């Protein structure tokens, strides 16, 4: 592993961690969170019913912000004493957050794997087709890709209900209860749009590769068309896909948020949505929990690509 790579990654890691800390506590900069939370607690505990006399404005409270930053750091290193505020009480954060987190992450990881696989298969199937047919398919996928995630996921939910009404075949409990967490359908729905995204991106890089000189050379040498596609173009296109994997990940996260809300799943996104606004420390912690594994993944992908290209250059 080269030294500069390690230094670069470490700097990136520290800066992003700092960024999460700064963003997570941002509400304390703009609102009088402390007094507001006290009032909220009084309302929730029924000590206060008339709120008409209360008035507040947007503030710029640097002192409270810095104070909250320090408090958040303490909170993060507090081990298992963590709590969150919900409806007038402080509840222990674990294992609630952990359950939500592992549910979301298992869906997210599985659907990322599925969508990378589906994207690759679809792209190769398309690349075999003649160029004119490809243009039609691209047009179709342009429309699908333009649809917002909320629309696609909502339609998927209605589709499940419709199939159930028609055939009595319940593909998936449309709203998850306790204990019966569905597996296949959420993963399927969550991987729909990322697949299209990956497909679009891969197709572009494949077509870019197609015009490269080395493909011409390989064709000239009489190498089989499929072998050029699978062996040579595939590798190079994958490198450029994984260079953009961050975008895919973010896109999948946004989809996850919509999925959890529409299908009423108790995942980490829903947890942040429900309790995040009054528990900024909890938000910061959850963001770290998403950031850490993702960062490790991205960095290792980057490292592999770097090593791979270095070897290619060396071999030449």
């Amino acid at each position, binding site marked *: 592993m080269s030294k500069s790579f390690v230094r670069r990654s470490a700097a990136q890691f520290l800066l992003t961690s700092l960024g999460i800390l700064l963003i997570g506590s941002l509400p304390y900069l703009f609102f009088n969170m402390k007094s507001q939370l006290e009032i909220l607690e009084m309302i929730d505990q029924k000590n206060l019913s008339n709120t008409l006399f209360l008035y507040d404005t947007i503030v710029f409270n640097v002192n409270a912000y810095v104070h909250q930053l320090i408090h958040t750091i303490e909170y993060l290193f507090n081990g298992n004493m963590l709590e969150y505020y919900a409806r007038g009480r402080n509840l222990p954060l674990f294992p609630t957050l952990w359950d939500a987190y592992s549910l979301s992450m298992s869906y997210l990881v599985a659907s990322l794997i599925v969508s990378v696989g589906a994207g690759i298969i679809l792209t190769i199937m398309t690349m075999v087709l003649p160029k004119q047919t490809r243009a039609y398919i691209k047009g179709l996928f342009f429309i699908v890709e333009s649809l917002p995630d909320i629309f696609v996921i*909502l339609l998927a939910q209605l589709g499940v209900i419709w199939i159930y009404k028609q055939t009595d075949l319940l593909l998936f409990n449309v709203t998850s209860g306790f204990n019966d967490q569905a597996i296949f359908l959420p993963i399927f729905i969550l991987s729909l749009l990322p697949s299209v995204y990956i497909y679009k991106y891969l197709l572009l890089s494949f077509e*870019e590769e197609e015009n490269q000189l080395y493909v011409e050379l390989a064709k000239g040498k009489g190498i089989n068309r499929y072998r050029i596609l699978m062996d040579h173009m595939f590798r190079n296109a994958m490198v450029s896909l994984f260079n953009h994997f961050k975008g895919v990940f973010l896109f999948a996260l*946004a989809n996850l948020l919509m999925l959890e809300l529409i299908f009423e799943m108790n995942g980490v996104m829903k947890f942040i949505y429900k309790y995040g606004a009054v528990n900024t420390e909890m938000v910061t912690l959850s963001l770290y929990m998403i950031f850490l594994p993702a960062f490790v993944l991205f960095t290792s992908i980057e490292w592999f690509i770097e090593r791979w290209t270095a070897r290619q250059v060396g071999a030449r």
Partner: protein
Amino acid sequence: MRKDSLLRNVPFVLGVSFLLLLLISSYLYSLYGAQVQPDKMLYDKNGNVVALAPFAPSLEFPLGSDLDGNSFVFKLIEGAKYTIGLAIAVAFFRIIFSFLFGYFLFRLPSSLRNVFSGLANTLHYAPVTIFTYLLIAPVVLNFSWSYDVSTKIIFPMLVLTGISIPVLALYIQNELEAISKKEYIDSAKILGGSGFYLFRKHLAPFLYPKLWLLFVQQVGQVLIIFAHLGLLNVFIGGTDVRVMDVDMKTGETTTQSFSMTNEWAGLIAQNFPYAQSFPWMVLAPVTAFALSILAINSIVYGIENRKTFKKRAVKTSMPAKAVILEQEHFKLNGSSHSSNQG
């Protein structure tokens, strides 16, 4: 008309005319639209009641109706001007401020710039909607009692504008960097141009077309965030939370949010509790969002592939060169896409 004129560009024209039609009819409707008192019941020829509101999609109600029997088509048309208007306004301010901030970043020493880009990287680890929500929610939902109406409208707009500035400014700074590496900039420097003059006369003109494209893309992005926020129960343009019901045993209150303007995100939020029983009540505003975003994307597609369309016209007259031209098209397409990641 010039051959590469945007007016001859089918996707562009389709997208623009859809949005214009929507906006114009929205204004005309609220100016001249007949205020029909909605009927909660639907009768057949003999005067028998056949259906109770909300009505399912039919010929009379193409997108169904709401709880009072108002047709969703008219509701959506009325709300279009607020939703699309706000999206355009937010996107406009996003571009203006990102442009200024991007220039500021461009003039900054590269070490500071790297620090900033590292910090901005945070935005890649959670959806923008969540960040926006966490900053808006205290004003419009959690502590809604203490902020007045104007704060509830202006502050969300500021957050929506501000949240995307880091990423957009970095993109603009990158573009400026790329342009400033060109040879003619060196010549301009040798001839004595420096600093702001160089920016105004030589860098900015190359940036403007890209900014236009970015602006249109941002309108689409803002629309998507509006739709998401609707699902998160935030109404853009003011949320009005009313207590509907109090549970006597637990003392928990059931609150419901209302929107008076028929703004689309508000319609999603308002109707989401009915999504299971009357799916069209949520599907109608979501479809409106989907169609507008599709229109925006086809405008983007039209602008991005401007030259391609010109070449296609050439292609029909000179089929012999078709292959080479097509290759250029794919290269163009690819490079424009890879520069837009982020």
